């Protein structure tokens, strides 16, 4: 490749790269801000309890099962 082409390509990479970095980090700033507003100040008691009793319902299997059903319907 000619040097001019390489230089052009690298300039383009400069733009794309800095653009991608800024877009991703700015998006992340937004998401973090939203989360910090939604999330209660301290973590929910369920997760924080040191020795929580194991699951009390079957939402696990329900989740997997519904995911599969959903997927199969879409195909």
């Amino acid at each position, binding site marked *: 490749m000619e040097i001019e082409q390489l230089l052009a390509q690298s300039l*383009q*990479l400069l*733009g*794309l790269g800095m653009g*991608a970095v800024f877009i991703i980090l700015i998006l992340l700033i937004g998401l973090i801000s939203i989360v910090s507003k939604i999330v209660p100040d301290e973590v*929910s008691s*369920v*997760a924080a309890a040191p020795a*929580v*009793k*194991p*699951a*009390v319902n*079957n939402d*696990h*299997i329900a*989740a*997997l*099962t519904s*995911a*599969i059903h*959903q*997927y*199969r319907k*879409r195909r």
Partner: protein
Amino acid sequence: MEQGLLQLWASTGLYNFTPGQAIMIAVGAGLIYLAVARRFEPLLLIPIGFGGILANIPIAGIAGPEGLLGILYNAGIESGVFPLLIFMGVGAMTDFGPLLARPSLMILGAAAQFGIFFTLFGAIAMNLLPGMEFTMADAAAIAIIGGADGPTAIYVASRLAPDLLGAIAVAAYSYMALVPIIQPPIMKLLTTEEERKTKMTQLRHVGRLEKILFPLLLLLVTILLLPSATPLVGMLCFGNLLKECGVVERLSNTAQNELINIVTIFLGLAVGSKLAADKFLSAETLGILLLGMVAFSIGTAAGVIMGKIMYRVTGKAVNPLIGAAGVSAVPMAARVANKIGLQANPQNFLLMHAMGPNVAGVIGSAVAAGVLLAIVG
């Protein structure tokens, strides 16, 4: 510039996602949620769930042959190395003392393996349903979920049905976490209040030499009768010998700490690589989840029923509840037996009595795995 932007856009996840991948990433996140918020076997389900997310990222190919998860899978699971090292670590962490103190209770750990073989039959019978196609190897790999032992399930599945490995591992660890939900109703249904109140006499002291000899005896019997179970049983015995012999403490510590931790991280990520949408999102997975539940329930019931037989035979010296611990799921199942026993009688501490059948269940399912590998493999 435009071309570069297009190239970049064509390389985004947004552009390349398939619905299956999106769903599987949600499933991975769901496993992590259950592990963190509900304490579902977090040591395995966090790496498996995260691995499942990584495996379903478009373009990146992390679960492919040149991606990290693919490399880990080939090096450690296809070869069988990771589950065997985990089993060594389990051996180094297991105290067979309660089992040695009252060896007759091992029979409970044998009975509970009925869950495995009944489920094998059930999986084959499922072929009568449309959309299900389980070969004998598939059925055997699914049945081993009933062993309630993660590394055994992964080892057998990697040998007999690698395509189903993701679903089998997820089912095995999930149901192990669900033992406190699945077992109590079955245990209560099959036992009377009086049976559940049965107190058991204190366990005898077990000497050090007996503990050293046990892994060697166990290995010897397995060698003579079922060599196909010796990779699993052998590594369990090796780990236990390291622990009990008392002269290689540094190796024993490493086997039950750093080494098993490292392998657990790698194993979990590698299992996650089998949560790729095209393999996981199928009718077979529903069948596996259903059969796994059946396996756990039948295994629990068989253990309790054998417990009731021993209750009669021994003149009420055995509380039938500890039979449920025979499925393994160490130490969760033993704790559940203890809890149900306490509900019936607040002075009734069954934990140590249940640990014998509990660890016998690990041996029992390794033996069952050997049978399946010998005949189906």
